[in-house]
C-alpha cells in the first residue's frame, strides 16, 4: 500500500509503548499492530482522532503517501 503509517516513530518520540497507546485509545493491540504493519485496509476518523489526541500530533504526522504502483489484483 502506498499509504505509510508512522506509528512506530511517533511512539518512539513520545516514549510510549503500544500497550499504553492501546489502553489510552481503546483499540486492541492486534488492531494497532495491523495499523503499524500496514495490514489494515481502512481507518475510522474516530480512530485517527483518538490517535492524534493521545500522540499529540496531526494526521499528516501519522500518515504519508508514496507514489508506488498499486499491487495487481
Amino acid at each position, binding site marked *: 500500500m502506498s499509504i505509510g503509517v508512522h506509528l512506530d516513530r511517533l511512539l518512539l518520540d513520545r516514549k510510549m509503548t503500544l500497550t499504553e497507546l492501546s489502553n489510552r485509545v481503546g483499540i486492541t493491540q492486534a488492531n494497532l499492530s*495491523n*495499523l503499524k504493519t500496514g495490514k*489494515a485496509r*481502512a481507518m*475510522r476518523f474516530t480512530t485517527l482522532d483518538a490517535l492524534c489526541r493521545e500522540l499529540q500530533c496531526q494526521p499528516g504526522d501519522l500518515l504519508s503517501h508514496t507514489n508506488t504502483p498499486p499491487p495487481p489484483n
Partner: protein
Amino acid sequence: MSTTERLPKVLQRLTEVGIAVTAVVAVVFLLTAVFTDSALQTPMEFTPEEGTYSLSSETWGSGTIGDAVGVVGFTDKSASLVALSTAKILVYAAASLTLLVLLRSILKTLSAGTPFVDANADRIRAIGILIPAFGFLIQGLDWATSLVVMNTVTAEGLHIEARLTLNLTYLFIGLVIVALAEAFRHGTHLQTDADLTV
C-alpha cells in the same frame, strides 16, 4: 447460551448423526442388494399392445393406454443388474455423505463465530454443483438400468421402453445455491474489510 448460538451446534450434531446413519444405511443397502433375493426395481415405460386389453366409456367411446410409467422388479438378479443397483446405492451414499460433510464444515465455522470465510463460499458453491451432478448421475443410472432391462426381458402383450427422466429441478436448485454462494463470497470480502478497518 442463546437459541441463536445453540442452533448451529445442534445442527452440527444432527449432521454428524446424519453422516453416521447414512454410512450404516448405505452398508445395509449394499449388503441387501448383493446378498439377498430382494427385488431389483427399475423405472420403465409401458404400452400394452392393442387387442390385449379393452378400454371404453359410454360417453367417450373406446380408449387406449400408452406411455404408462411404472416400475419392474426381478428377484433373480443378473450381475449387470446387481452392478447397476450397487452403483446407484454408492452414488446415493456418496452424494449424501459429501453434502453432509460440507454442511458440517459450514456449521462448524458458524458455531465458532467465523462463518464469513472464503472456504465457506467454496463449500456452498460445491454443494450447488454437486446437487445437480449427483441428481443427473442417479437419473442416468436409472436410465442405464432400464436399458439393460429393456434389452434383456421379453414381454408378452406389452411394449416396454427405457425411461430417461430429466428432472431439471436439481439444476435449478444448483443454480440458486451457486448464485447464493457468490453473494456469500461478496459478504466474506466485506467481512474482511470490516475486520481490517481500525
